[in-house]
C-alpha cells in the first residue's frame, strides 16, 4: 500500500457564516493523481485553495508527509506545491521568464534555470515559444506554458484547478494526453479539480466526489460507479457520464 502524502482530518472551511467545505477524512497517496469531481459550486476549488493555504480552514488538521503542515510558514509550505488555475494567468513577459518565475522565487541559481526551463518547455511541447511574449499565445499554448511553469518546480504536490475547462475539445484532449504521460513519468502526486468526469477518469487513479460542500465518497472510478455511497453521488455520476463510456 502506498504511503499518504497528505492526510486531512475533520476539515471545515467557512466563508462568512456559511460552511463551504467539510471533509471528515481524506488521504492523498504519494504518486497518485486524485481527481476531485462534483458540480459547480460544490466546494472542489475550496479544497484545492485550502490545500494551497490560500484559504484558512476554521477547523481541522492537514498533515503533509506525516508532519503537521501548520508548523511551516505559508511561503515554505507553498514552495513544496505548485498551482495551475483554470486561466493560465501568465505574467506579461516571455514564455521563458514565465516558466522560470517559480524557480526564481525559490532562489534557484541561473545555471540550473537555464537547464530546467528548456527541459520542461520541451516536455510540454512549447520549446519553440520560449522567446515569445505570453500575451501572444493561443489558449492551448498558454495552458501548456502554465503547466510547464508548475511542473518545472518538481512539486511534491501539484494542484490543478480545472485547467482544461476553457479549452476547445481537440486542444483539451491533446494536453490531457501529454499531461497524463508526464505525471506518470515523473510520479507527481496531483490533486486535479474538475467537473468533467471523462477527464477525471482518463487522468486520475482515484476520484473524490464533493457535493453540497461535503466530501461524499472517495475511491477508484469503477468502484464509485458500481457502488455510489449516497443518492447524491449516484445522481451526479449518472447525470454526468453513462457507465458504458467509462
Amino acid at each position, binding site marked *: 500500500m502506498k504511503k499518504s502524502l497528505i492526510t486531512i482530518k475533520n476539515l471545515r472551511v467557512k466563508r462568512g457564516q456559511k460552511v463551504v467545505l467539510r471533509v471528515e477524512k481524506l488521504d492523498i497517496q504519494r504518486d497518485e493523481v486524485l481527481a476531485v469531481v462534483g458540480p459547480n459550486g460544490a466546494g472542489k476549488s475550496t479544497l484545492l*485553495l485550502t490545500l*494551497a*493555504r*490560500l484559504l484558512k480552514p476554521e477547523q481541522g488538521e492537514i498533515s503533509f508527509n506525516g508532519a503537521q503542515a501548520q508548523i511551516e510558514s*505559508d*511561503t515554505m509550505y*507553498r*514552495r513544496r*506545491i*505548485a*498551482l495551475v*488555475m483554470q*486561466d493560465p*494567468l501568465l*505574467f*506579461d*513577459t516571455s514564455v521563458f521568464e514565465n516558466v522560470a*518565475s*517559480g524557480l526564481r*522565487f*525559490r532562489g534557484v541559481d541561473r545555471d540550473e534555470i537555464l537547464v530546467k526551463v528548456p527541459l520542461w518547455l520541451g516536455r510540454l511541447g512549447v520549446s519553440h515559444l520560449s522567446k515569445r*511574449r505570453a500575451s501572444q499565445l493561443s489558449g492551448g499554448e498558454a495552458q501548456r506554458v502554465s503547466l510547464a*511553469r*508548475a511542473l518545472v*518546480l518538481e512539486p511534491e504536490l501539484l*494542484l490543478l484547478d480545472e485547467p482544461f475547462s476553457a479549452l476547445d475539445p481537440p486542444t483539451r484532449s491533446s494536453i490531457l494526453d501529454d499531461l497524463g504521460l508526464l505525471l506518470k513519468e515523473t510520479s507527481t502526486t496531483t490533486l486535479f479539480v474538475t467537473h468533467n468526469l471523462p477527464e477525471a477518469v482518463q487522468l486520475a487513479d482515484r476520484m473524490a466526489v464533493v457535493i453540497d460542500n461535503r466530501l461524499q465518497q472517495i475511491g477508484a472510478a469503477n468502484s464509485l460507479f458500481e457502488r455510489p455511497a449516497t443518492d447524491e453521488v449516484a445522481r451526479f455520476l449518472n447525470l454526468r457520464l453513462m457507465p458504458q463510456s467509462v
Partner: protein
Amino acid sequence: MIFDAEVLQITILSLQISALATGVSLLIGLPLGTLLAQSKFPGRSFFLSMVNTGMGLPPVVVGLFVAMMLWRSGPMGDLKLIYTPTAIIIAQVVISFPVVTGLTAAALQALDPRLKLQLYGLGASRLQMIWMLWKEARLPLLAALMAGFGSVISEVGASMMVGGNIRHQTRVLTTAIVLETGKGNFDIAIALGILLLTITFLVNWALTWIQQRGAQR
C-alpha cells in the same frame, strides 16, 4: 535672454525640486497605494476616499497649510524651513503623493485578483508577490509617475506661498512666470512658459517612450 545664467539656475532648481518631490511621493505612494489595493482592513474605503479627494487638492490650500506648519510661530517653525527649497518640496509632496497613491491603488485593483493567488501558488513570498504585481501593472504605474510629476512641475500656488519666490534661492519657473507677468514683462513670461512646457513635454515624452516600449514588447 532665455538661456542666461539666471534662467538656467531657475530651470535646474525647478527640475531638482519637482524630481525630488516626485521621488518622495513615489516612496510614499507606491507602498501606500499597494496597501490600499491589496489589504482589507476596517476603514479602507474611507482611506481610499481620502486619497481620491487628495488627488484634487488645490495647491494654494496645500501651500497655506504647509506655510502655517513651517512659519516661525508654527509647530515646525524651529526647523527654519519656510522660504527654502525644502519647504517647496514638502508642499509638492503633499500635492503629488495622493496622486501617486490613488493611481497605484487603481492600477493594482485593475489586475486580475486571481494573479495574487497564482503567485502564491508558485511559491512567491509576500514581497515577491508585490514586486510581480508592480511589474504586471508597470504601464499604469508609469502613468502614475507622470501624473505625479505633472502635478508638481506645473503648480505655482504652493511654491509661491512656502518658497516666497526668492531670487537665486526659491524662484522656480512657475513663480518666475507669475512675477514677470505681474511686472508686465509678458515676453519673458511667455518665453519662460514655453520653456516650462518644453521641459514637461520632454520628461513625459521620455516616460511615455519607456511605457510604450514596455507595452509593445
